[in-house]
């Protein structure tokens, strides 16, 4: 009985594979590579725009300046804000093509858009040095999260494992360029970080004094553990962000296909 069931299942699987292979090799009259190219290229813009506006308006201040990249809030708000659109694209690309590439694709789009913005708008137009306004990158985190989806084939597992990996990877990957700016510097008889000195040297009349804000943080009482407590919470925040992204992908991008508001 069991052997018979296996044989039927194997035959069904073989048949399904043959059908898929036939579908893959099917030649169409008008559907050609141009549609793929136009889709993947023009989608870059809307994906980059959505990812960047989400990052800027949820966590932008922490991303704009080196002296805002603190151990307390930066890992949390950044992990939450940057995972939302990659999660949505992960769902869309997995649902449409079984491509475990959505987070990486979004991260690359975001990387491109953010660097264009930082270079032309912050550096060229406003004369801020790039080593003060450099953006973070989520490419490493995107690759890892896509790899987790590929291996688990489960959005639930990806949300549990991937979101925490995302939070740690975003912090770790960007800590490398940040580390030099956390070195101590003596400035007007005070010991500050190099990033603090940058913040004092470049006047930002319309931005609150961030040094004063983070002094209030009660997490400072944990001293050296601050970073790890923040990272643990960042994973939780990223988990929430992941499912917000899933809702966007499922209900705002895929669900509406061929659905209509009946107007009569």
């Amino acid at each position, binding site marked *: 009985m069991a052997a018979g069931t296996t044989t039927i299942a194997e035959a069904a699987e073989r048949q399904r594979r043959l059908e898929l292979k036939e579908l893959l090799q099917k030649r169409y009259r008008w559907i050609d590579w141009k549609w793929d190219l136009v889709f993947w290229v023009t989608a*870059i813009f*809307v994906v980059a725009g959505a990812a960047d506006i989400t990052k800027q308006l949820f966590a932008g201040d922490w991303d704009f300046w080196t002296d805002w990249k603190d151990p307390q809030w930066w890992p949390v708000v950044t992990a939450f804000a940057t995972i939302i659109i990659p999660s949505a694209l992960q769902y869309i690309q997995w649902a449409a093509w079984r491509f475990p590439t959505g987070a990486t694709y979004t991260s690359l789009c975001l990387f491109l858009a953010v660097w264009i913005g930082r270079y032309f*708008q912050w550096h060229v137009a406003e004369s801020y040095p790039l080593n003060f306004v450099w953006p973070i990158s989520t490419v490493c985190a995107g690759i890892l999260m896509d790899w987790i989806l590929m291996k688990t084939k489960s959005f639930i597992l990806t949300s549990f494992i991937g979101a925490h990996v995302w939070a740690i990877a975003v912090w770790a990957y960007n800590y490398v360029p940040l580390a030099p700016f956390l070195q101590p510097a003596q400035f007007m008889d005070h010991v500050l970080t190099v990033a603090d000195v940058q913040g004092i040297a470049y006047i930002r009349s319309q931005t609150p004094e961030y040094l004063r804000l983070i002094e209030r943080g009660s997490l400072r009482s944990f001293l050296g553990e601050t970073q790890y407590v923040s990272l643990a919470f960042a994973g939780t925040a990223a988990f929430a962000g992941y499912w917000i992204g899933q809702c966007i992908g499922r209900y705002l991008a895929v669900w509406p296909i061929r659905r209509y508001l009946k107007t009569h």
Partner: protein
Amino acid sequence: MARSHTVQKLLRTEDLRSTTVERPMNPTAWGVGWRPLFWGCALVLVANTFLWFWNYAFMFTAGLNSASWEFTLYYRTLFWGELIIVGVFAGLWFGWLIRTGREIVDQPCTRAEEVRRVAILWSLIGVTSLSIYIEASFWPNWDGSWHQTMVRDTALTPTHIPMFYFFFPLSVVLAVGSYLYGRFRLPAVYGKGKGFPWSFFLLISAAVLECMAVAANEWGHSLWISEEIFAVPFHWPFVIYGWLASGMFAVWGETILHLFDIERAEEAAQPEAALEPHVAAD
């Protein structure tokens, strides 16, 4: 019903294409169905480049004091100019789409022509996507660097004028225009009898909500938090816009499904010819 000159010309062109054996039309050739993509993106990029250089040239010399004559000359003029240009463009384009659309919506068309129309819709969506990137990433970066540095004395600041009053309404116009194109040119997907598509409802809502969020932003900065903290709550409606723009993926999804329908119909009608890709049916 009397056909307009434009529609008669369009139909004549299609008849000619349909009967010309020597020069078959490939609706997915770069110069046929995809042409609006290149022209549209080029126009949007030209406008963006002009506005970038305009701001770069005048923001520090004329953009700091809204009570000055220079501000009126360089920025209020730009503000009104942008609104007039977008308004006139919208009126002319929508008028043309509706007028010609009403005349051809019930006319039968070949499958190749329908494929060309889907390509044109994708082109319009592609241009909308570019406009959304410019308004959601390119200009907000400058908005951040400008407003976190300079004290504002008006809602019509040098970075707001190109972003809020040109690219925001332009995205509305492009999204609505794309729908109107589909509504009359692709009735099998967006025809009147089907109701209003959720995909375009979300996409248009996104663009309209973005304009409404401008009001929340100005109110917030006037009466609540004058400092430019990007993560303040009254900025968050702008984010919702970025999420609703996901409706664009639904437009891509439902039109590619329609393309498969067309391919199936073509294969059923001409099974042998359907195996030869890129050869026009007409």
